[in-house]
């Protein structure tokens, strides 16, 4: 029954928005860790390697997890 439930959950109806938000959170964590260890902002390919995902997914997920107020934080910080 566990198998069937997993099958039902993975039947391809997962919305992209949810999946991207989850990846977006991982990107934020990886960015913070890499910024510390490299002492600079990591490149997009460094993030992709660290998370073992494609740079395409990094671009999509970074946008999906964007905090709407971040524009102002960036400017006024």
């Amino acid at each position: 029954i566990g198998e069937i439930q997993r099958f039902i959950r993975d039947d391809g109806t997962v919305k992209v928005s949810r999946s991207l938000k989850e990846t977006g959170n991982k990107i934020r964590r990886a960015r913070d860790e890499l910024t510390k260890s490299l002492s600079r902002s990591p490149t997009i390919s460094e993030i992709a390697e660290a998370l073992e995902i494609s740079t395409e997914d990094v671009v999509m997920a970074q946008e999906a997890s964007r905090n709407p107020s971040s524009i102002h934080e960036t400017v006024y910080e």
Partner: protein
Amino acid sequence: MRNEMHIRFSAVSENESFARVAVAAFLTNVNPTLDELTEIKTVVSEAVTNSIIHGYDHDAEKFIELSAVLEEGKLDIVVRDEGHGISDIPEAMEPLYSSKPELERSGMGFTIMENFMDEVSVESGPGQGTVVRLTKYFAAKKALCN
């Protein structure tokens, strides 16, 4: 509401990924499923790669046009090049047919497009470039899944 985008980009393989993500980002507005998005991205890859490899023989000075129009759950994608064109379209669209098997092309590009999209049409002729039109009905698909 009708929403459209038209992209013109250099015919270099690096832009295959750009084209895929651009279409995916455009589609974010209809919040597709992961599977739907993967299918559309695959189809765009196949068509754009064909234009780069077969249409233009990797001529980085040339351009590819990619359009997407969304209207009431219907997605129309058009990929257009002004390259060599195709002389025998039915033959080109046959599964496993490739005019460049030496490049380890699988000959499955058009088959994949037909499989993942609801409608596929090809307009082409020797020296006339190639226009691939791909249609997918989103709303219908979504109703089925919910």
